[in-house]
């Protein structure tokens, strides 16, 4: 295992058909990242953000337009993929259909002319970890999605790579299998202690597996931090809305003054929330900002509450939690609680917010406004 360093990496695809080459035509734009030895890193972003391109550059399947990539102490920019000592598990498994599981895993060891005895020892070592030891004689065609993925990963790690790259490992699995494999990958990482990079568009996958998450958009790194950090302290509107399910409530609000108190006034409705103390000094009457608050941080006030009165548009009892949706213009403000309460459409409740857990973002740039 080794640490991974990306320094100011750029990637541009040369497209001759374009008559006017735009200045910002980069698929990956000034990307820098430093991962510790043995860390589990998630590269997360919507489709088209450049995450797969980044993965391919780390693996050596794509050229780097400029910048450097180090695996351990070695600069790997011009190294062929097979010289980089990485294990790559493809998104669509790419198992060799005519070979059985054992031969699939043994394939690249045999290509490296490792002798059969050593190959056998290695496979017998990792097969039980990935729970494929009773599948060694089967062919890929008879395996379930989850089983294929385990073989895929076994094949990637059997060479004891310095770096393990997983490309959207859970995206083609259904709900239950996804949960099972999520737990297994996490335990696998603990067992083999290999620096692992997972690339995904599913924030749940990244949150549950990674030690730290690198969030990307349009080729640029947005934030790099632990799951709790990106959840509690998103640096901009995009990260705030991308992480967390159900997503954070992000609404445009005007700052208004009433009775000498400052309020967040939701556009398109008469819902108001008092401005928390820590923002009092930085917002002014007449400003417009983007307010972000997670559904679990919206609260129902009791009879003495001074929160503004709102009408319940939708009440959902979803077993483990209750969700209340409140109409604000064209959108909904969503509130989630685990309390055993029941409401109906049309009921009036008092809305309060957990003051510590509100976020403000600049209306133009989307950047976080810090108190």
């Amino acid at each position, binding site marked *: 295992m080794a640490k991974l360093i990306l320094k100011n990496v750029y990637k541009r695809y040369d497209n001759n058909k374009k008559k006017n080459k735009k200045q910002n035509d980069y698929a990956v734009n000034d990307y820098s990242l430093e991962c510790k030895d043995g860390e589990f890193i998630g590269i997360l972003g919507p489709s088209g953000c450049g995450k797969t391109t980044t993965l391919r550059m780390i693996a050596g399947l794509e050229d780097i337009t400029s910048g450097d990539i180090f695996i351990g102490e070695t600069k790997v920019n011009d190294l062929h993929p097979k010289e980089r000592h990485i294990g790559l598990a493809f998104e669509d498994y790419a198992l060799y259909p005519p070979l059985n599981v054992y031969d699939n895993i043994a394939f690249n060891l045999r290509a490296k002319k490792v002798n059969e005895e050593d190959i056998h020892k290695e496979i017998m070592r990792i097969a039980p970890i990935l729970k494929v030891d009773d599948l060694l004689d089967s062919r890929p065609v008879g395996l379930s999605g989850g089983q294929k993925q385990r073989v895929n990963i076994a094949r990637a790690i059997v060479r004891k790579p310095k770096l393990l790259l997983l490309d959207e490992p859970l995206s083609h699995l259904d709900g239950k299998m996804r949960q099972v494999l999520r*737990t297994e990958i996490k*335990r696998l990482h603990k067992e083999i202690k290999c620096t692992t990079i997972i690339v995904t568009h599913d924030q749940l996958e990244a949150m549950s597996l990674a030690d730290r998450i690198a969030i990307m958009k349009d080729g640029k790194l947005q934030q790099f931090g632990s799951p709790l950090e990106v959840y509690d302290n998103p640096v901009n509107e995009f990260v705030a809305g991308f992480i967390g399910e159900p*997503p954070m409530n992000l609404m445009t609000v005007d700052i208004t003054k009433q009775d000498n108190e400052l309020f967040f006034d939701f556009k398109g409705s008469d819902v108001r929330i008092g401005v928390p103390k820590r923002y009092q000094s930085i917002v002014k009457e007449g400003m417009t900002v983007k307010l972000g608050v997670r559904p*679990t941080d919206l609260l129902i006030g009791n009879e003495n509450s001074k929160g503004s009165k709102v009408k319940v548009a939708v009440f*959902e009892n*979803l*077993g*483990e939690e209750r969700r209340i949706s409140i109409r604000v213009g064209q959108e909904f403000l969503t509130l989630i609680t685990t309390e055993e309460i029941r409401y109906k*459409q049309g009921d009036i409740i008092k809305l309060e917010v957990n003051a510590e857990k509100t976020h403000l973002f600049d209306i133009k740039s989307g950047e976080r406004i810090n108190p």
Partner: protein
Amino acid sequence: MAHIELDNITKKFNKVTALNNISLEVKDKEFFVLFGPAGAGKTTILKTIAGIEFPNEGLVKIDKEIVNLIEPAKRNVSMVFENYALYPHISVYDNIASPMRSPLYKKDEEFIKKEVYRVASMMKIDHLMDRLPSQLSNGQRQRVALGRCLVREPNVFLMDEPLAHLDAKLRHFMRAELKEMQSSFNTTTIYVTHDYLEALSLGDRIGIINNGAIEQVGTADEVYYTPANEFVARLIGEPEINIFNVDLVNDNGKLKVNMLGQDRLFQLEDEVIGTLAKHDNEIVDLGIRGTNISYSLGKEDDDYIKGIVYSLEPIGNKSVLIVNVNDELIRLIAPNNLQAKLDSEIYIKIDMKNALFFDSEDKTFIIRNNQERLIKGMA
């Protein structure tokens, strides 16, 4: 609006039995959800009601009238297909207008224009009227398909996984929108989904189906708090309910539970003791949801059981903690800032007040505490 009945419907495709002697009743103006895993037969039921599929046996009735031999066009049902089935060569406006231009349901163009725009603004697609389906995103196509279904006034709305291909954000939004609109539907609706959140949220009643047979029909509270069997219990709820064998032991005349390899015997609620005592088996299955299990780093009281941390997965506003107790993996909910090393020691406590009991042989539901109050919708 109409009353829909399926009487003993059996449907086979070649050798495969898709529907096995199913009987179902949907009341007038009810919003009925058909819920089950993929391949259970939900879409087949919808198509049988619509008349697109013909049952091998059994009767389909709309408003007490047998409609088996009536063509789909004449049954006056409106359907949203899972893959939208939009007409690719005409605009969004024409797609939504199409049901009102057919020979059977023809309306004049003035009326059509009004109705199309009414539905389009409800679906928030009024700015897309001139586009072709191929120029729309998945979410927009979904809403056009819904619009085409809702623009009519049929006997029944049939909706086949209408939110399935939307991204998570849009799905939550559309689900809330649909629920808000429900009260204005005024039409019997049968809604198919494999997402339990949609089922619990939208259904007046939920029909749970598996392998062509109905497992349970009930309100959201009924299927969540008193699932008919272990299959239903596992289907609903996140994380999945924990179910494991326990022994019923007579401890000085009082019935207690021996579980998870512990020496100590655990108390049962008085309400359940009576029924369990009458139960033949000494082994039953105990089901407990992750929200009804607490954890602690130390043994707080005698009811805490020692285990080993198997996995800790933060998922936003909470974490899923999996604890290995005596080789049984127990899933529970923990706060999102919990730090616990894998394979370290931890203690869990099961809230027996919320335990469900199942027969360990046929997996059917026996009893739980507080049954009556819970299914009446009270905490």
